[in-house]
């Protein structure tokens, strides 16, 4: 175990990105406290200032762990398997539990190091007064540590199942964010009701660190319209989190053996060579059969775009149809919820949730598709082949962008039925819906351009994906955190500025989502999104040009 632990921990520490993350954490947390430090020797006896500082500190700590930690365990096992070193580990005397423990503790040690860099800031918050060192700061660190443990356990499990590091990173971030945020949704929908579903939803909520952290900083019930309500559930979270992490650890250790390599090569079965009966059944089941022999790429389509669709596991048309159908069902269910069970939410709130659903899809899906557009080619040797073809650079660049743009437009189009139902219920909302949709489209363009531009500077897809996710999470969640703490500590001007950085605030504002209606964010939010989009596209184009020209 010790050699694995040492290699894992030192391997992370040797990475320049990890060092940058540690430094960034130390600087950011120091600054957070400094801006809230009492000026001119005046001490706030009520403790409101220190509580405000503690609130910002806690939110940043949770956000930092959610963004930083999952990337390391996610690629840990799958990268070793692809490089062949995992087989060497299996042939060493270290048992699977030792390999797992080494990897787990290595990443945990790094997470601990990140938390240590925040201790001076925590001490400063305590020195400001009004915050209990054990019941608040101590428990906050315990909650964050358990969330880090859970993230590592999720990452390592995903890493044993994934086939590539970038896929593992995508799935891990998706699952960690699902645990942190989506686990709150069932409780929000069943709130006020009793029965089995309400009990299950309540226990599911215990897996999210969000209500616990909000309670510890004294904001339980103040944020999210009561979604993060009164009952803290700190101990339930600690028990549930550690319990789930233990279950995931056992599941991962059971998979850590030679079966990981016992996978035969795909024989490349093709439907065209099978019986008529099989062909008919497959056509009915799939609509677009992925195992059908494809016709050649027609002259009017960009070959790069077609290649991008075909090389994505979920880029094949049958998967896109399933994704679109899933989105349509979710949007209709949400609208149905508005008209039946939760009428008190109002059409505007449902509209706001639809906007959030769309933006969440954009932020989760776009980086996974766009961050590796160039990086994956460079990583796998495809770029030198593309350079040797007669395809001009602009066709390579646009083919890659359009492959993501079409996918995202299809996904967004699938959520439109929800809006249609809304405008049928309340026809006066037509203009609001139109403005919200323009904002969402701008969000797609901005996210796509930004992801492609950032990803183009990387040579590894996993690193590109992590960087893009971190940037986008800060960009989209940051303003919402600022909005959540509107009034104290953030003033009106700061909240307005933060919300105008992305089109999300503008969309929520025009659709009439409670809490956002007082902000006039159009056209400033559109202009900022347009400027970011254009600047990112220019950077992306320049980088593609630079990579294509002779060295």
């Amino acid at each position, binding site marked *: 175990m010790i050699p694995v632990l040492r290699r894992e921990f030192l391997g992370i520490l040797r990475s320049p990105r990890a060092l940058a993350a540690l430094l960034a954490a130390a600087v950011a947390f120091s600054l957070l406290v400094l801006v809230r430090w009492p000026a001119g020797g005046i001490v706030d006896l009520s403790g409101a200032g220190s509580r405000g500082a503690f609130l910002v500190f806690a939110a940043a700590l949770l956000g930092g762990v959610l963004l930083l930690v999952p990337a390391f365990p996610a690629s840990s096992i799958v990268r070793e398997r692809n490089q062949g070193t995992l087989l060497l580990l299996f042939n060493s005397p270290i048992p699977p539990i030792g390999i797992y423990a080494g990897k787990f503790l290595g990443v945990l040690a790094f997470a601990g190091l990140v938390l240590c860099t925040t201790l001076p800031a925590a001490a400063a918050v305590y020195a400001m007064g009004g915050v209990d060192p054990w019941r608040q700061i101590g428990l906050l660190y315990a909650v964050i540590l358990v969330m880090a443990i859970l993230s590592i356990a999720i990452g390592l499990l995903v890493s044993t199942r994934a086939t590539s590091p970038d896929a593992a990173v995508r799935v891990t971030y998706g699952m960690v964010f699902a645990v942190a945020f989506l686990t709150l949704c069932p409780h929000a929908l069943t709130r006020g009701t009793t029965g089995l579903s309400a009990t299950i939803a309540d226990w599911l909520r215990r897996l999210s660190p969000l209500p616990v952290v909000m309670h510890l900083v004294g904001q339980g019930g103040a944020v999210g319209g009561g979604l993060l309500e009164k009952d803290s559930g700190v101990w339930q979270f600690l028990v549930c989190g550690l319990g789930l992490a233990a279950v995931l650890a056992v599941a991962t250790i059971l998979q850590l053996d030679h079966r990981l390599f016992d996978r035969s090569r795909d024989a490349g079965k093709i439907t065209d060579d099978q019986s008529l009966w099989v062909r008919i059944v497959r056509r009915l089941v799939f609509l677009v059969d992925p195992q059908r022999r494809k016709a050649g790429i027609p002259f009017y389509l960009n*070959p790069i775009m077609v290649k991008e669709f075909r090389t994505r596991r979920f880029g094949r048309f049958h998967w896109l149809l399933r994704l679109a159908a899933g989105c349509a069902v979710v949007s209709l269910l949400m609208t149905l919820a508005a008209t039946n069970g939760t009428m008190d939410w109002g059409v505007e709130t449902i509209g706001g949730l639809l906007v959030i659903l769309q933006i969440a899809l954009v932020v989760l899906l776009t980086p996974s598709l766009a961050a590796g557009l160039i990086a994956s080619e460079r990583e796998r040797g495809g770029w030198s082949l593309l350079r040797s073809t007669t395809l001009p650079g602009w066709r390579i660049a646009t083919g890659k962008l359009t492959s993501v743009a079409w996918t995202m437009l299809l996904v967004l189009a699938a959520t439109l039925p929800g809006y249609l139902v809304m405008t049928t219920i309340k026809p006066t909302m037509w203009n609001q819906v139109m403005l919200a949709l323009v904002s969402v489209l701008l969000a797609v363009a901005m996210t796509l351009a930004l992801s492609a531009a950032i990803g183009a500077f990387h040579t590894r897809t996993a690193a590109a994906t992590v960087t893009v996710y971190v940037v986008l999470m800060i960009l989209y969640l940051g303003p919402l955190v600022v909005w959540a703490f509107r009034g104290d500590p953030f003033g009106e001007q700061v909240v307005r500025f933060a919300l105008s950085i992305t089109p999300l605030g503008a969309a929520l504002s025009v659709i009439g989502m409670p809490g956002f209606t007082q902000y006039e964010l159009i056209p400033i939010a559109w202009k900022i999104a347009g400027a970011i989009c254009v600047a990112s596209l220019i950077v992306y184009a320049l980088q593609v040009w630079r990579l294509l020209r002779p060295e």
Partner: protein
Amino acid sequence: MNAPTDPVLDIRNLTKKFGEFTALDNLSLALRRGQILGFIGPNGAGKTTTIKILVGAMRPTSGTATIAGADCVRDAWRIKRLVGYMPDTFGAYDNMRVREYLDFFGAAFGIPRGARAKRIDEVLETTGSGWMQDRYVEALSHGMKQRIGVARTLLHDPEMLILDEPANGLDPQARIEMRDLLLKLAGMGKTLIVTSHILPELSRICDVVAIITQGKLRAFGTLDQIMRDLRQKRTFEIQLCGPAQVEGAAAAVREALHQDEREGVKAHATESLVRFDTARSDTELAAILAALVGLKIDVSQFREIPKDLEDAFLSVTRREAPAT
């Protein structure tokens, strides 16, 4: 239009510097249509730099390189049509079948859909890969991938093929198949530049060989020419009927040779043979044989040891290696 005897590849005084480091130093060579050039050298010798300049992926610091009259710097667009390049990494795409993979590269070269389908059939036939057209690219074995890599370079029917380590990592059977494939391509009139570390393979297929070390061309020509240039001395073996006469035979050979050649005479009692290097003519060697027979030494064979590419390569690299 070039005359058939005109060089299809003409490299003149090609130099590439990265700051102070000279990766390629005044390289000049020419290659005629249909020839196979074995481009060999140790790691970091400048082979890949040369190849990258030829395919237009790198600019030389000075000098010129033309392929079928097209300049590798000024006519980079024409070069892409004239050259089929197979790098040492395959460049696989996930979830793509072989036929889709070739279709993509055919479309990237602007081949119309109808002609493309026909061309894919042809290159699959040429490389003997038709049976794997429905396989997923990432699921292919290394040997299969190399075949598909060659098929990919043939799609746009280039005049010249540049193959970087095509036999690397192949098993003996696949190596033989790859060798036959390269000979078949040369037979089709293609000009080939092949780099490889498996020198016996190269020596069997190459018309000309270029040996490069530390960015400099050390030897260029047919294998025979190179051997003549590199080694003035030839190696001979005298096989005796038994070990008892080995020392006597060795002494007789030493007596017949010049002073400077005597140290090179080695007696191998266990193998019952005497081996020596000499620059003497065939007539003088006949006299040595006659002397041995005159001494009643039972000689069963008196033979010259043929030199191969490996000897040439080692000879050049040892000569140019920095003193330690």
